[in-house]
């Protein structure tokens, strides 16, 4: 990090810019890099979702814009950018405009908390797991605000549902997170990953002691993301489009981006917690084996770690898409009953089991 900082200051010196500009702007750079990377990932995630769903339903999916439809999402984004921004009459204008930002910005921030490799991450705090959960619950405010400010009954019902859902599914989610923290004895996400290193390849991953926890986390994450079968807040056949019914153009795009970005981040988070994050499933890094030069091997290990994290993340995303293609939507009262009567007791059970495991087996 320091090496990069000096490079940056030197670059500024070349253009005769004072050092304090470098000091103030350098912390912002990771955010910019993160945001751009995330948006690029999301663009192709949307394409992936469409392609995967098309595959499941025996269609071709987007295949006109660019080779294999690669630029379809970019074309869609340009279309959304060019659209007129409509604020419906009777809407609370300030809040109506604030809502998409409130949903979008926190998502951009927490992306930096995920440890991409063993050395290099954008933000690393001793409590980053807790921070992740805290910031991840902010976008729901944006959704509530969107529903409230739209002056539309569908939006209102949609946002009520979203809030009720988020509140009830956050509890089991956090209890499962606690069990992982107990296993790793740390709230730092990188430490959680490093705690999953074991002598045998991938045997140390927390999915094995906390398999029940992983399932609960997966279900709750699906619900948190408002994805099928928990997509009640935007149930198309009931609420037209839920909280974002009245949004168009770029404001809608913000919601859309936030949703997909959150899906990616949640899956990356899940991979970090349960699937060993950036660790290689072989127990050693391929680049260590095949590249003789120590310096370049070290560099390529970092990239390989990012690759492993992305691979695991995309596997989880694929599972979510598979679920979406298969299941019908739940009903709101079933949804609540499922969270409070099934998932919450199970997450307690999981926590209890993990504590016992940690005390009797793992500690020795």
């Amino acid at each position, binding site marked *: 990090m320091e090496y990069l900082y000096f490079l940056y200051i030197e670059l500024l010196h070349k253009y005769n810019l004072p050092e304090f500009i470098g000091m103030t702007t350098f912390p912002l750079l990771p955010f910019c890099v993160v945001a751009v990377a995330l948006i690029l990932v999301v663009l192709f995630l949307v394409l992936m979702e469409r392609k995967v769903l098309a595959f499941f339903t025996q269609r071709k999916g987007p295949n006109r814009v660019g080779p294999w439809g690669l630029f379809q999402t970019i074309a869609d984004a340009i279309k959304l950018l060019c659209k007129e921004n409509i604020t419906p009459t009777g809407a609370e204008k300030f809040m109506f405009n604030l809502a998409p930002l409130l949903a979008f910005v926190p998502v951009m921030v927490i992306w930096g908390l995920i440890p991409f490799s063993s050395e290099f991450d954008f933000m690393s705090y001793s409590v980053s797991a807790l921070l992740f959960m805290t910031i991840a619950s902010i976008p729901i405010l944006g959704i509530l605000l969107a529903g409230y400010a739209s002056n539309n009954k569908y939006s209102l019902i949609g946002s009520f549902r979203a809030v009720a859902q988020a509140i009830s599914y956050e509890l089991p989610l956090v209890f499962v997170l606690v069990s992982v923290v107990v296993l790793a004895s740390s709230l730092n996400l990188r430490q959680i990953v490093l705690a999953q290193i074991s002598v045998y390849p991938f045997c140390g991953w927390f999915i094995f002691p906390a398999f029940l926890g992983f399932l609960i986390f997966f279900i709750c994450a699906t619900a948190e993301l408002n994805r099928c079968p928990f997509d009640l807040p935007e149930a198309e056949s009931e609420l037209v489009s839920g909280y974002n019914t009245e949004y168009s153009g770029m404001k809608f795009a913000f919601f859309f981006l936030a949703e997909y970005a959150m899906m990616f981040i949640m899956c990356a988070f899940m991979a970090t917690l349960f699937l060993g994050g950036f660790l290689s499933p072989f127990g050693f890094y391929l680049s260590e084996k095949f590249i003789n030069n120590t310096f370049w091997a070290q560099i390529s290990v970092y990239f390989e770690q990012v690759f492993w994290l992305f691979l695991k993340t995309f596997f989880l995303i694929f599972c979510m898409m598979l679920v979406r293609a298969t299941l*019908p939507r*739940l009903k709101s009262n079933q949804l609540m009953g499922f969270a409070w009567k099934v998932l919450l007791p199970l997450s307690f059970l999981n926590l209890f089991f993990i504590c016992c495991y940690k005390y009797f087996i793992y500690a020795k």
Partner: protein
Amino acid sequence: MTTKNKLKINIGPQHPSTHGVLRLVLELEGEIIKSCEPVIGYLHRGMEKMAESHTYLQYLPIVDRIDYLSGFFNSFAYCNAVENLTQIEVSKRSQYIRVLTMEMNRLSSHLLWLGTFLLDMGATSPLFYTFRDREVILSLFEELTGQRLMYNYYTFGGLRHDVSSDWLDKITDFVKIMPKKIQDYENIITNNPIFTTRTKNIGIMSKNSALQYSITGPNLRATGINVDSRKTIHPFACSPIQLIYPELDFQIPTAQNGDSFDRYKVRVEEMKACLKLISQCVDWLKSNSGEVISPIKQPLLKVPEGEFISNVEAPRGVCSCYVKSDGSTKPYRVKWRTGSFYAVQILPKLLENAFYPDLMAIFGSLDVILPEVDR
């Protein structure tokens, strides 16, 4: 906007799940529906009035548009009424072809219903699977009649042209693969816990209320009443086609509870019965030949004075056509009775105190199609 904690909400006329242009005025208390008022008429085209200014033959292509998903049934009901008024004999072969095409049409209509019903419930994939299979039927119809939905294939006293043996072979192939597909749907839908909890004991229609609201078709049979005008000959509509159905071997599927799940189950079973009927018709047509072209050649058909009601068991309940003639070349009055209209009438009763998401599970299961309601 709100009165005493009640939220008045308009569903439709443009809404993804109202299958056309139905408008429902709902009063919600939280997510519970307190009252529902269907508003119809957004798709009224004056089908009945139109008959009075067209000759009998000119009106024939129009009737397919009453229910665009099962055009053959409307066409049949109208042709049958006119044939009975004019005392035209319909050859056995054309009757068999009529039954064959009608049963295929029923199958395609149920396939579309299955896909959209599941789409309303939030499952996207079944729609594409059922449309894939429906596509096969529609291409067969296109090959036969030149049209995919508005067939205009039946005429008074017969058909426009005969079917080819190639076409019949294709149907044989289709009938062979279809049972496996229906089994696939059952595997992913019938035993799905989310689907069953969302539909079982939801929107229960009692035998009594079904009869009071004169519900017909699969919706009635789901309550346990075994009435089907293919099996039971209607007292005042001894249409010649009903002489064909007794020759065929098929069962009328029924259920017990009259809830959404039973309506689903009855329709799926009916699809299997359709396949059975189709293969029997194909076998008959392959081994027997005959004339199908109508003996009537003149375009201006003069129908003797009188009136007639013909009934046919359409996919959405009994479709009957009343034709009154004053002896001229144009009908004096044509009246249609279609199943969906009555299904919309019972909707407020079924929706009372239901959850808002149940609206789709109930309304979707009734298989309402709006052009048939408004005509």
